[in-house]
């Protein structure tokens, strides 16, 4: 078994009893002890809980009754996911002592699948404010170059997966917070369709743009985690009441005959990307063509349209959520969080409604543009991970991102490693599918990953 296995590899080794759940967990804990002081992916480790989970898994394996492919697999949760009896802080001093009574639905589902909880992971404050060194816990650092950011807000999850401290983890995505860290940390991350995975028990940033989902080293591992996380939940009013397909069954079917829409204007006109990112996109196009997919040019509304709609919905809903504390305890928020969410208090109700009207228009425009394609291919970020800045900054409002279109439309999207830039930092590519077409999305992402060498390269730590 490689030093850091994938979830799929570990599952095979556990099934063959080549390694036990307790041995695997202890190996991860040793990696965390050695590596995390320089990476700060964890806000809280839960060693006793981890060993208890691992021991329970071991008992099941010894009885010949493992729960499934995730039984005994060490993971961790973004620290906005409620974990019963275990501190959940949203990386904020405002919740420094918050201990929930109950697990988030997705935490409970992953626990029921047999995963081993290693701890709680760093996040941007309340999933929006970061990176910020003035918070009670330091921000996570990029394992590929620790002077560089991870992107956020699932910063700890991206870093911990890339560093091999966990085999997979939970994230959330309101404007790119799973896909951004996946791209900057060179791992796989999927934002499923809105409503595919429950938001219940996950501290919200917004109501209508939040998505929960996994990050892991490979697409297959994301599929395994998503299988456990997905499903209708009456506790989440936005939960989609649809059957959950098998996300892994068709993973290796390839892309021959699929129609992939390249949204070229996103990265050549709307928000120009650097040469490394351009190369990754060009490489993805070539790979898909070689594999028998048809590449078509697709035009969507500009990134600035999605930014205007998505950002204003995001900050307005976020402000509504934080309004009581923003009015009475604003100084206790981190500077970045306070600045970003403050804008939401300045937007009128009428303008929020206009944003919602625009949202319906944008959904229709993307649906129309996708009538003759199965998937979209876009850039993930304009550059590799950027260096930390000495002072936290406000949002880069002049630079629209590539992720938020698919939070506005709610369709599933994921990023995978598309290569590396000059400084050895990873670059990602993004794929998006039609609503509830996660199996197709995962299949296409896996097809790219399987024929590229990027999964063989880990950060040198």
């Amino acid at each position, binding site marked *: 078994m490689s030093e850091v296995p994938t979830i799929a590899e570990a599952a095979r080794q556990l099934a063959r009893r080549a390694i036990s759940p307790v041995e695997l967990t202890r190996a991860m804990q040793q990696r965390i002890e050695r590596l995390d002081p320089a990476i700060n992916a964890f806000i809280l480790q839960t060693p006793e809980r981890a060993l208890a989970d691992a021991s329970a898994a071991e008992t099941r394996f010894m009885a010949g009754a493992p729960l499934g492919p995730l039984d005994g697999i060490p993971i961790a949760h973004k620290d906005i996911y409620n974990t019963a009896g275990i501190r959940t802080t949203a990386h904020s001093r405002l919740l420094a002592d918050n201990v929930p009574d109950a697990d988030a639905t997705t935490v409970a589902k992953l626990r029921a699948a047999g995963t081993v909880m290693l701890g709680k992971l760093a996040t941007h404050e309340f999933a929006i404010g970061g990176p910020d060194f003035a918070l009670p816990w330091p921000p996570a650092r990029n394992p590929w170059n620790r002077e560089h950011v991870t992107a956020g807000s699932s910063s700890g999850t991206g870093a911990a997966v890339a560093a091999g401290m966990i085999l997979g983890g939970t994230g959330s995505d309101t404007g790119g917070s799973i896909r951004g860290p996946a791209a900057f940390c060179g791992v796989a991350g999927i934002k499923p369709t809105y*409503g595919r995975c429950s938001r219940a028990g996950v501290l919200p940033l917004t109501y*209508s743009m939040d998505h929960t989902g996994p990050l892991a080293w490979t697409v297959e591992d994301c599929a395994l985690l998503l299988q456990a996380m997905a499903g209708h939940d009456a506790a989440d009013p936005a939960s989609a009441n649809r059957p959950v397909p098998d996300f892994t069954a068709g993973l290796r079917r390839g892309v021959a005959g699929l129609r992939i829409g390249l949204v070229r204007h996103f990265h050549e006109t709307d928000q120009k990307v650097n040469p490394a990112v351009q190369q990754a996109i060009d490489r993805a196009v070539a790979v898909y063509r070689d594999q028998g997919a048809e590449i078509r040019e697709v035009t969507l509304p500009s990134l600035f349209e999605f930014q205007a709609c998505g950002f204003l919905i995001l900050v307005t809903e976020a402000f509504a959520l934080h309004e009581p504390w923003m009015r009475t305890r604003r100084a206790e928020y981190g500077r970045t969080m306070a600045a970003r969410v403050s*804008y939401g208090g300045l937007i009128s109700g009428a303008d929020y409604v206009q944003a919602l009207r625009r949202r319906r228009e944008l959904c229709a425009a993307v649906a129309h543009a996708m009538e003759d394609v199965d998937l979209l291919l876009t850039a993930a970020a304009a550059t590799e991970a950027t260096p930390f800045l000495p002072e936290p900054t*406000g949002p880069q409002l002049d630079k629209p991102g590539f992720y938020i279109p698919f939070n506005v439309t709610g369709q599933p999207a994921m990023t995978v490693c598309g290569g590396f830039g000059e400084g050895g930092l990873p670059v990602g590519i993004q794929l998006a599918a039609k609503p*509830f077409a996660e199996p197709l999305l995962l299949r296409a992402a896996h097809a790219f990953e399987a024929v590229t060498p990027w999964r063989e390269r880990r950060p040198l730590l």
Partner: protein
Amino acid sequence: MKARTTEADFAALIRHAGISPSEQQIAELYEGWAWIEQMLERLRGPSPRPREAEPAHVFVPLAVVEDGR
């Protein structure tokens, strides 16, 4: 890029929101406000939307596929 809202009017928006950033924080927020104004103009559009243009009240993704092909 400079905001069209005056600093005095921006301060009024801040007061209306009921938040109390420092003078420096208000200045930083004001710097970004020009971009927000641009976003608001985009959303309001060059001409009014027809009355039938409904908001996404209950967010339901469009163009759903049945079998996830």
